[in-house]
């Protein structure tokens, strides 16, 4: 199977339930992006370890949009194609902050539990 990256399946990380929304919000913090771009950005910033299924990504985008955390508009992309660009809303920014602190707490807590005795 010809895949655009060389990461083998074994090294990939299963995404924790509920974290995809946070990752999407985080990615959009850098500026408006279309769906494909969001997926690529997450993959690149995770050094190809996180491969987001589009079957999850697009529902997540639409879910966030329905909740008012992100907004969308159609714009010409860099390659001069019409693409749907998503951007953070004020509510989304707030949500991101909240999720980030929740996430940090979770990581710290789990790390404490998992610390070698």
């Amino acid at each position, binding site marked *: *199977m*010809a895949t*655009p990256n060389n990461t083998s399946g074994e090294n990939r990380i299963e995404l924790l339930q509920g974290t995809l929304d946070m990752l999407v919000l985080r990615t959009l913090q850098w500026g408006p992006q*279309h*769906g*494909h771009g969001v*997926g690529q950005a997450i993959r690149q910033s995770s050094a190809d370890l996180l491969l987001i*299924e*589009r*079957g999850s990504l*697009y*529902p997540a985008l*639409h*879910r966030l949009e*329905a909740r008012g955390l992100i907004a969308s508009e*159609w714009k010409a*992309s860099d390659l001069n*194609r*019409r*693409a*749907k660009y998503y951007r953070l809303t004020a509510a989304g920014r707030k949500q991101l902050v909240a999720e980030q602190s929740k996430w940090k707490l979770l990581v710290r807590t789990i790390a404490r539990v998992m610390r070698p005795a």
Partner: protein
Amino acid sequence: MRWDFWRRKRRETDLDDEIAHDLALDAEERIRSGATRQESEWASRRDFGNVPLLKEGIREMWGWSSLERLGRDLRYGWRSLRKSPLFATMAMLSLALGIGANASIFSVINAILLRPLPGVERGSEVVSLNENVGGNTLPLVSYPDYRDFRDRNSVLTGLAGIGFVPASVGQKGDSQRMWGFTVTGNYFELLGVKPLAGRLIQPEDDKVRGGHPVMVLSYTGWQKRFGGASNIIGAKVQVNGREFTVLGVTPKGFFGTELFFAPDVFFSMAMEKELEGGSNDLDRRSNRTFFAVGRLKPGIGMARAESALNGIGRQLAEEYPQDDGGMKIALSPPGLAGAFLRGPIIGFVAALFGISCMVLLVACTNLASMLLARAGDKRKETAIRLALGAGRGVLIRQLLIENLMVALLGGAAGALLALWITSALAAWHPPVDLPMIVSAPADIRVFLFALGVSTVTALLFGLLPALQATKTDLVPALKNDAATTRFRYWHLRDYMVAAQVCLSVLLLFCSVLVVKSLRRSLEAPIGFQSHGLATVSFDLNMQGYDEPRGREFQRRMLEKVRQLPGVGSAALVDNIPLTLSVPWNSIYIEGKPVPKRASEVPSAYAFTISPDYFHTMRTGLISGREFDARDKQGGRPVAIVNSAFAARLLDGSSPLGRRFSTGPTEKPMEIVGVVETGKYFNLTEQAHAAFWTPLEISYKSKACLVARTRAIPPASALPSIRRAVRDLDPYIALFAAGSVDDQLTWTFFAPRIAAIMLSAFGMLALVLSATGIYGVMAYAVSRRTREIGIRMAIGATQAQVLASVARNAATLIGTGLVLGLGMALAAGRFLERILYGVKPGDPLTFAVVFAIMLGIGAAATFLPARRATRIDPMQALRQE
């Protein structure tokens, strides 16, 4: 809503574009890393996963508006119905018949009971006043009583009097009989009727007796007699040979205050004597021949008004004990001859409505069993959908919507059917010499009714099958296995068959019973032989004859007609029995004490006849003699009575030679003959007293000629009779000419129409239950194909297979029959009161219904059972 729809469309294309954009970018990346274009496109599609599923998930996130969901379900339902047109047609047809029958009856109920009087302002305040003294049943009051009630009461804003008059309208020789109302001056004002043209009768037109030769035409009268001529206002018209002026025309929707009597013309009450020749006395307190309608004062209910009017009634009874003693007043909604027709009509219509509801119930169980069978057919589809994760609620909703579509289509067809029936009814003219209108226009209420019935039907009778359908055990259903599930003897469908049989038996039993009783009452002796009698009526007063000239005319006319070749015998009578206009009289027997109160005086139907009447009518003379040449003008007053008169009023003692009078101060008459008792007012009446007096002694200007024809049908004797009369007076207006059988059509009409409707409903129930049984049995056999195949493969004979199928059917039908007959027995008790000459537990009826139902059940089972015996074991085993 529309906007919402467009927004969704937009979102759909957006989503498509977004996905396409992603796929394109992905494929480009793959191409850049060295794959061919085609490979890349395939790969990115493969990687993307299930696009429709993704879209479906995203769509859910947008949330469906209820309208879109409905649209989707409707499309689904439509597709699903189109896939099984037979089911859809059968279901809709049975519902259409059930709802059509129901909606037609409802439109009649609506027209005569629910709708206020057409064309009347605030009709709900209008009441009809019924004065009851002794035995009168019509809502009749006398004019003096009317005046007292009008002037003394404080509960009505007004009270108007109405008389019914026939009038001969037009030029001599070109006159036409029209029915009209004589109304008091306040009539139109009280009802709030505004003229369509000209003006209506006002209080000033009812001041001087005989001084107001004016008339108002109803819209139909104007159209019918005067062709809607625009110059009618102020026109001079001959009425009974006298010149009347047309004042105006009433609006199109106004038919007077009686639903079954649409007058062509309205006269002033002051002209009563001129119009009826003094036969209808305005000053006699005991002459109860007028109707009265009043309008309740605001805030006063009917009960309170009634008790107030009864107070006045008691005053009048004290003041005039001879005329008004024991008088009771009852108020009722107007339109149906006061309380007289209302009770029977409500009873009749309620019975019809009940029966049509039962027909609907049969249609509904039919629908439910079809739905159940269908649910069985769709078992696999349902299981697949459930397995793929469809919610049960969604499936139930879709099934209900599908049912609702069937029901609404069926209901629409039913409403059309009702519309057709009621318009046929409106176009039909009852065979009577009265301006009757039978109109039950379907209005919005009828459609709402049909809509409501359809919806309730679909939800009520569709829910159970839908619940059952979605309760599928997935694994066996998916394995396509129909026969391995444990064979259950009583399935929900089976209950439906039993219920259907039960209802049909009940319905059939009741209709057979009632039809039989109606036939009995039609065959019961009516006291004369109507077959072979020709008749023609005329009123000499309307032609301006005085009494001596009238007597002469009647005598010469009888002579001439008796000599006509086709006529065997002929006689004159003032009213033919059973033609709705039969007067009665109070009876005072000589030697018996005079009752103190008018209400205790017995009454008898009164007829005035010429000699040879009983011979012509073929009424049996029991004792004494007929009237003959001895009974001349100014001669000894004599009378002939019927056997019921002798039995009831003379306590069975020999009547010949006894004397009675029609008033305490009237001259007594001697009884010279006794004839058999017949029917005089309607066919279902109990034996009623009647007496006949000679026309020679008590002259009547209005008379009906009856002639028994010899060897020719009555209708062919009419032209020569007409000629004979015209020879005497070329201008005379003859009416109600025809055979007596035709005249009696009306009397026989109500029971006949009832019999026809009941038979129709019974047949409808039979057809419905036959299709129901057939459907369920056919379905059961198709479901058991494999089982039967196995049985036959291991050696079951055709007879055994037949027996196994038939046994099942027999159990269902038998149970339904037993339950139905039990219910029929109970229903018979309720019917007992209206049955005539038939016992509610009539064993023959039971046997007939049992046989019919058994026959239908057998026929409906036979075809599926035969199919079962023809199953080829090899094919059956391979098939599934």
